[in-house]
């Protein structure tokens, strides 16, 4: 599939709404007018999924936008006001869970310990030994919401960093983005893996099926990436993501091999075994290390970001394991 043609490089369709608020946001974007949001009382979300989908649509305006939606809506003041309101709720939830967890650290190297000690549901052991082909495909569809824009949210942080942290983050991102070779760009490897599995690699193709937890995970990454004040959390999230990637990626690749699922998708996960064994060291020691050396007051935010990564992933794991074990 050539660059710029149909497929994952194309813009996406607005997803179907899942409640009052996502309905209004969708209508506003589709009509390129915020009139649907101007009614009184102000529309509120029916539930977590409605709120998460509305916020996800607002965030996507900052990535690739939607087919048929005026690109100027990205900076519409009414939409930004709504985004702020939804972000405040999301951040408050996150900080409440963080405070309850009691997670803390004296240095960035303790991110390794925090990741090691974090307990809870995990998907990779199940994927390794037990998952069926359909369960794997269900998960890959959900993962595509992030993996087709892999590494993009933390790229927002680059211009907000000092010299050493900036150079360190770009060194890692250069590898994530294929070292200059589009065929090695991680999002592209995932798209090729999806196509080889018979899935649609179009950006956003499976958002309508994504569980609340997956939309929230994506929203948390965008929240951290788009707010300069949360740059410490963005880098802490990156660090925990990398620290918890290498060993699970190997189990997932072996699970795919067990089911004889596409080599291209196995390649995506095998690439992450090796890449993330490097990236976890860079993210913790070099990137977060440089950030905290430059701005010691950001250590708590780094830890918040690391916790958020582990917490969101555990919620996703619990969602899928509950579903699959109930069906067994």
């Amino acid at each position, binding site marked *: 599939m050539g660059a710029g043609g149909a497929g994952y490089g194309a813009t996406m369709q607005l997803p179907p709404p899942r409640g009052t608020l996502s309905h209004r946001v969708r209508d506003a974007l589709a009509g390129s007018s915020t009139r649907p949001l101007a009614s009184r009382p102000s529309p509120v979300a029916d539930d977590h999924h409605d709120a998460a989908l509305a916020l996800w649509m607002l965030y996507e305006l900052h990535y690739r936008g939607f087919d048929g939606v005026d690109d100027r809506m990205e900076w519409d003041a009414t939409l930004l006001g709504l985004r702020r309101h939804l972000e405040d709720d999301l951040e408050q939830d996150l900080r409440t869970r963080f405070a309850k967890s009691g997670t803390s650290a004296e240095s960035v190297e303790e991110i390794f310990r925090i990741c090691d000690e974090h307990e809870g549901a995990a998907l990779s052991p199940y994927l390794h030994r037990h998952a069926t082909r359909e369960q794997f495909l269900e998960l890959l569809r959900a993962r595509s919401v992030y993996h087709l824009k892999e590494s993009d949210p933390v790229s927002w942080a680059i211009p907000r960093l000092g010299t050493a942290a900036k150079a360190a983050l770009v060194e890692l991102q250069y590898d994530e983005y294929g*070292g200059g070779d589009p065929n090695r760009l991680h999002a592209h490897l995932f798209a090729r893996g999806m196509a080889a599995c018979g899935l649609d690699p179009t950006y956003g193709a499976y958002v309508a099926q994504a569980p609340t937890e997956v939309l929230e995970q994506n929203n948390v990454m965008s929240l951290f990436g788009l707010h300069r004040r949360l740059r410490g959390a963005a880098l802490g999230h990156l660090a925990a993501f990398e620290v918890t990637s290498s060993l699970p990626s190997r189990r997932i690749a072996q699970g795919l091999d067990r089911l004889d699922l596409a080599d291209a998708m196995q390649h995506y996960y095998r690439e992450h075994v*090796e890449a993330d*064994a*490097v990236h976890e060291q860079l993210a913790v*020691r070099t990137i977060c290390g440089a950030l905290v050396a430059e701005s010691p007051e950001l250590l708590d935010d780094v830890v918040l970001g690391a916790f958020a990564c582990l917490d969101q992933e555990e919620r996703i794991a619990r969602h899928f394991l509950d579903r699959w074990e109930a069906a067994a």
Partner: protein
Amino acid sequence: MSRSVEPPAGIAHADVVICPGGPMLLRGDHLVDDGQGNLVRTQRPVSAVCRCGKTETAPWCDGTHKVLPPKLRP
């Protein structure tokens, strides 16, 4: 009158980094002897060479050191 300004200081930046309990990072392009008679060229901006001896992707680190008891880690 112009004010004298100190130029920004240089920042220490190693080409080879030993990670305590983990791999050795190599920055840049290197030809690595894997100890089995093979020469393997680095493929990424930074590569992690296994130091625990338990990796399944030799000579590169695959994170296995993290599941070893602390006294068996490099």
